[in-house]
């Protein structure tokens, strides 16, 4: 079965200069996402698979190497899971 991911939609976040800042659940850490991370965050408003995220980035940044992008997205998702700002849905 395909693994899907969704952001924690209860968290407070704000976009500043194209970068998204998220207040973590513990209310004492702010996570700053870079430009591409912010794009993923926006996409994860609804559940998405890694492949769908890769596709989204490829369409926004034409010319990017798909293999590299997939690796980067996987790493990014792992970090977000560790920071508990996104959830995994089986």
């Amino acid at each position, binding site marked *: 079965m395909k693994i899907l991911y969704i952001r924690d939609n209860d968290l*407070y976040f704000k976009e500043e200069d*194209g970068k998204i800042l998220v207040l973590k659940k513990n*209310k004492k850490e*702010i*996570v700053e996402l870079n430009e*591409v991370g912010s794009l993923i965050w926006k996409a994860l408003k609804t559940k998405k698979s890694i492949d769908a995220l890769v596709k989204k*980035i490829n369409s*926004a940044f034409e010319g990017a190497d798909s293999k590299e*992008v997939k690796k980067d997205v996987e790493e990014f998702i792992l970090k977000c899971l560790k920071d508990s700002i996104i959830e995994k849905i089986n």
Partner: protein
Amino acid sequence: MKNSKNKKIAINIENASKRYFLRSAKAKKKETFFALKDINIKIFKGEKVAILGDNGAGKTTLLKVMTGIAEPTCGKVNSIGKLVSLIDITAGFHPEFSGRENIYFNGILLGMNLSSIKKLEQEIINFSGIEKFIDQALYTYSSGMVLRLGFSIAIHSDPDILILDEEVVVGDQDFQKKAYDEIEKIFAEGKTIVVCSHVLPLLSRLCERFIWLDKGKVKMDGGKEVVIEYKKNRSKLDIEKIGKIKNEKKFFQFLQSLPIGERFIVEAVSGSMEPLILKGDEVRVERCSLKNIRVGNIIAYWSDEFKNIIVHRIYKKSSKGIFLTRGDSNYIVDEMPVTEDIFLGKVINF
């Protein structure tokens, strides 16, 4: 760029540089940073130019210098014709005026005359999609609504030169589509346009000249071959950066944007006698309005001097605002005024 001798110049940038000073509290010295270095660009009437470059390459600074929002530190910048920039479309708005009054206020600042604003008023309102709220004061608008109104006025102001930044196309998907359609219409009208965007497919379709900026310098200037080179160069995307709370003003501003009643925790960075807070203590703060603060309350606020969030007790209220003492035993300052712009919230765990 071909046959440039016969073309009229719209924007001329000669040997322009823009220098900023970076101040660091730790280093206690200022560093020099060149956002633009020795830029020479001639943009001709009717040209559609796209500025490419990674974050921090100097794109927005270049646009700001073109529009006159920022002065170059050295060099010359001239533009001929009515120039409208969609870099900061909310600039030139008054928060206490209604949306409708702001159409007139902002329209005049953009060089429109009263009769043309009157004629276009309804069109501007319809385009912005905020008809219901148009007679409400601007401060009651969400930031998205202000941007939509700003975009609508700018797009209707009939500029000779239009300067667009990447973040201008705002709002929901319907509005974005409307905005892009309108930008495309302007592209078709033969006006001079300078855009700066990461949306490469859109740009390569609409523009004919591309200027690639890298670390404040022009790396390449030409036709579609610039886009091809640029794409090759940025095939590796940096996705992984995740930062934590730091003592930065941007994080303070983020916390300040939290809704009233929202709570968060800040960590004490130095000891304080009044109230007794030790280094490393967790301080719980609740967002509230400064109007609800009374003498005796402990509050959190931003200190530009210490580049940090400071926690202190209010000891006196004056007609000018709220004042507090700084109870640090080795750094005694009589009074420190706290105003809305630096106020964060009420401390709730004391």
